[in-house]
């Protein structure tokens, strides 16, 4: 019977279509995601194509229609943390995305927590929805409906839908994970000059001094000499466990932190006396002692 089993298996393999190759669709599924300061934003949708249809809006999508900007199952937006969309608070979670399309005046974006809906299941109005108006802009022609993130900054991005010659921008702002502020009384124990030595560095290496000051409400570190000129100073960002990580500003705003350089201070008599710097594997990569 073995030969019969083998023949049947081969026959089945030849006659059954491959699952992935048989899924050609007029509106192919797509996913676009962006992480900003630890907040992950994910948009899942299907991409209808214009396919030479004229007047996409007003004809294919009729005026006054509550339309999901996609196809098939409703487009969804998922935020891993609370964000603000066009200035309105949006709790973390997954939402179906809808647009009320109008011939004149602003269109309305509707984010509905009932996210698993077919495109024909238009949501009724509920208090849980987040609604806001957007002004459609004119853009160069886009054949397949496209969602994208642009205008990326440490604080947020623009999520935009483009189809035909219409562009719908949505401003998303995320919450900052870190605070630059260290109160003067909390900063006081750390102020001063410290030796700084990389672990495993040659004894002949030029001594490094780390100066910690309190400037404009933040702890600032400056080392001399710096590892390289572009990195002569950095902010010390406080972490919840009492340690600090370097932070870097651009135009007065935090744009990057060094998570693999954690400063752990040891205090005695209300004053920091020494520190260790730990990296990803928790290994000590540098250390220092108070000089003054």
């Amino acid at each position: 019977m073995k030969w019969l089993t083998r023949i049947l298996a081969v026959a089945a393999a030849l006659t059954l279509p491959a699952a992935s190759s048989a899924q050609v669709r007029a509106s192919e599924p797509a996913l676009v995601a962006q992480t900003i300061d630890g907040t992950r934003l994910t948009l899942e949708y299907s991409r209808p194509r214009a396919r030479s249809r004229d007047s996409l809006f007003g004809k294919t999508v009729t005026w006054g229609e509550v339309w999901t900007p996609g196809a098939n199952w409703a487009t969804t937006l998922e935020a891993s943390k609370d964000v603000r969309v066009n200035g309105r608070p949006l709790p973390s979670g997954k939402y179906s995305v809808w647009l009320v399309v109008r011939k004149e005046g602003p269109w309305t974006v509707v984010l509905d927590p009932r996210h698993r809906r077919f495109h024909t299941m238009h949501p009724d109005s509920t208090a849980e929805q987040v609604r806001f108006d957007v002004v459609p802009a004119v853009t160069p022609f886009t054949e397949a409906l496209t969602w994208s993130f642009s205008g990326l900054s440490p604080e947020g991005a623009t999520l935009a839908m483009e189809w035909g010659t219409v562009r719908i921008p949505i401003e998303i702002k995320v919450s900052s994970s870190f605070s630059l502020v260290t109160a003067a009384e909390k900063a006081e124990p750390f102020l001063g000059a410290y030796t700084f030595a990389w672990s495993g560095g040659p004894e002949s290496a030029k001594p490094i001094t780390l100066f910690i000051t309190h400037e404009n409400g933040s702890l600032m570190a400056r080392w001399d000499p710096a590892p390289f000129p572009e990195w002569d100073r950095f902010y010390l960002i406080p972490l919840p466990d009492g340690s600090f990580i370097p932070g870097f500003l651009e135009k007065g705003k935090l744009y990057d932190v060094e998570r693999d350089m954690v400063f752990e201070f040891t205090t005695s008599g209300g004053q920091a006396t020494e520190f260790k710097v730990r990296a990803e594997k928790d290994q000590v990569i540098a250390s220092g002692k108070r000089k003054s």
Partner: protein
Amino acid sequence: MFSRRDFMRGCSLTGLALLAGVRPAWAGIRRARSSGPHPTPRPGITAAKVLTKEQLEDSPNLIPLFDSVRGIPEIVDGIRCNCGCADVEGYYSLLSCYEGDAMARSCPICQGQGRMVSRLHKDGKTLDEIRTAIDARYG
């Protein structure tokens, strides 16, 4: 272009190799981190499945780390690993990273969290305090 990030990766992965102009091929790689709630330690959990030194013959430098984890399974089992492996089927806690295929053999985040948990536990920190520190560093 040589950047601050390259410099830090060099420091954390190879000591001061970068200062000597040596840049390993894997410098600059940053692993995705994921965060979430910490698991509740399973009652009666043991370290019976944590790899032994016989199973770590090819990585002798990791034996002390695995030994330290073996000593406190009830603590390590209450910590979530933030390297992304928490989403893998069969995973329960950071302890899982030290069992079976043992992702901690190669993953710097599994290793770092394991070392940190052991160190803080030795310092007398409670599980909640250890979780706070882990979240601050790896969350």
